[in-house]
């Protein structure tokens, strides 16, 4: 349910972003004083550091006592064009319940995944020339997760070996998962130095090393369905540390001299 709520929230944000993007051009024209504000053409320069956390994960952690997802995000901004990102997350998820295998076979199960992930890569803002703060970006990242798994299951037993059908447990430690993801997203400055970061990524598994228990819920990757590629939704709140200015003020004469 929470996912659908978040999806709707995402759509709303997309719509508002669309409005922002459409209104941005006239805004520029109206604010041209004799002393113009312009983005100085120069090679990429360090322009900011943003830190943040995944809002979806925080929401799930707060509203579902069987989910702990604490994902941290940081990026280094080169102007508002290139972002070098690094993420770290802790995740502890427990699922349990009954499921119906066949009409007359209802079983109980427990699955737990507990671990961390690192994810790093680069993002490029497609609207770098049009916006000083916000952006519509694409990116590519590499991710690595390590986690422990536990599952309680109904062992079918064996008539031949005279073994009964009974509930058993299995634990697997230090499961590794490597994947890459290509992504697209929006970083929208909502207030001062605060940004909302919405993105969707296509996660492509490289190597999932589960031996005993299917790596079903991978920190940072989410639900894994038969090691197939999948879409990963992310929604973060970011804060930009105000250390660098990204604009310079120059006169009209200086601007004309340069061009």
């Amino acid at each position, binding site marked *: 349910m929470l996912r659908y709520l978040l999806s709707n929230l995402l759509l709303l944000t997309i719509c508002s972003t669309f409005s922002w993007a459409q209104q941005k051009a006239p805004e520029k024209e109206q604010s041209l004083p004799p002393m113009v504000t312009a983005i100085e053409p120069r090679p990429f320069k360090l322009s900011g550091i943003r830190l943040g956390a995944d809002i979806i994960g925080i929401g799930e952690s707060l509203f579902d006592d069987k989910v702990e997802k604490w994902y941290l995000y940081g990026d280094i901004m080169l102007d508002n064009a290139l972002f070098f990102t690094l993420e770290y997350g802790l995740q502890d998820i427990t699922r349990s319940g009954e499921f119906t295998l066949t009409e007359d076979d209802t079983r109980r199960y427990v699955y737990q995944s507990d671990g961390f992930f690192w994810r790093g890569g680069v993002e490029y803002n497609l609207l770098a020339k049009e916006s000083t703060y916000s952006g519509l970006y694409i990116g590519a990242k590499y991710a690595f997760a390590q986690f422990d798994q536990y599952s309680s299951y109904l062992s*079918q037993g064996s008539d031949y070996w005279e073994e009964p059908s009974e509930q058993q447990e299995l634990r697997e430690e230090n499961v590794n998962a490597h994947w890459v993801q290509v992504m697209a997203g929006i970083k929208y400055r909502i207030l001062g130095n605060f940004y909302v970061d919405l993105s969707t990524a296509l996660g492509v598994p490289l190597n999932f090393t589960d031996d005993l228990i299917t790596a079903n819920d991978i920190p940072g990757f989410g639900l894994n369905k038969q090691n197939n590629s999948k879409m990963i939704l992310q929604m973060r709140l970011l804060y930009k540390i105000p250390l660098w200015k990204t604009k310079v003020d120059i006169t009209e004469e200086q601007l004309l001299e340069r061009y």
Partner: protein
Amino acid sequence: MRLKYIILLGLLSLLSACQDCDPQTPPDGRVVVRFLDPSDNDDITIDFDSVYGYSTTFQGGNIPRDNNDAYRLPLSTEQEQISFVFAIQGLQDTLHLSYQKKVIINGPDCGNFETFGNLQALINGDTDQAQSIIKFRDSAIFDSLVIFDEEGSVGPALINGDTTTANIRIFIANCTDVSPNQEMVISFFDPVTDTPVSKLFERVYRKEFPNRPILTSLAGEVTSFIVELIPGEESITLVFEERAENGLIESQQITFTFSSNISIIDDFEGCLQNEALGNLRLISEDSIGIDSTAFPSGILFDSALINRSIINSNNTIPNVKIFTQQPTAVDDL
């Protein structure tokens, strides 16, 4: 252009919210073993006399061949190293397996189920490293073994719900260049001690060829002799003649039936013969094909039994054991 980006992003985000699972049928925990001819990789059908599994703590009963000419070996849910013995015609080989219990998590709404993965074979039990390909050296029946993973490649197997595709293929060499043996070995035994006894026959011959004896008194006393069977025939009647102390000839005849073109494991050549002779049986006095029979009206012999029903190139093992009459005690006269 910007609008397109945003719509695309929105659609992808909606896709991200979709999660589902495909219900799967749990496997029944049995390894499918098929036997193949290494010369052409064709399946061969072998009816083992017995196949049974054992572990360090338990020995199971016989496992029959299934309807698809495969053997489906049950895995233990409590141990991860077990062995299976395949026995046929006095020969046997042991297949040692190692594997790991595995839990398939089938998505948030479809639960989980147990299966077995990383299935491999050990040549000589638990002292060897598990392997997916084995060339047997000192085996009596098996030539080599290959294990296939769930994608059909050579490698550790995962037991899934497929009950027909082989997890393990065992190759048994075919005796393509060896002619089937035709020599039926008949031996004589004491009915009380079950030890070999010597007999001096005047003649032993096929009933329809009295003038072409198989054995004569010139051979002296024998404990056993060989009868050449003819492929295509279905029975043979032997007439045994022995000279009594009073000089008269006493005789008794025994009829055997057999089949041609059956598959056997030749224990001397160590390979499979598809056109061998076997299914050897005795015909009792009331004309019933059986594995052992008494001769109530027999003069020379008390009884007989089929000791080995296949005609094999290893002729040190008798096919037929004939028990001689006990000498009549003087007091009984």
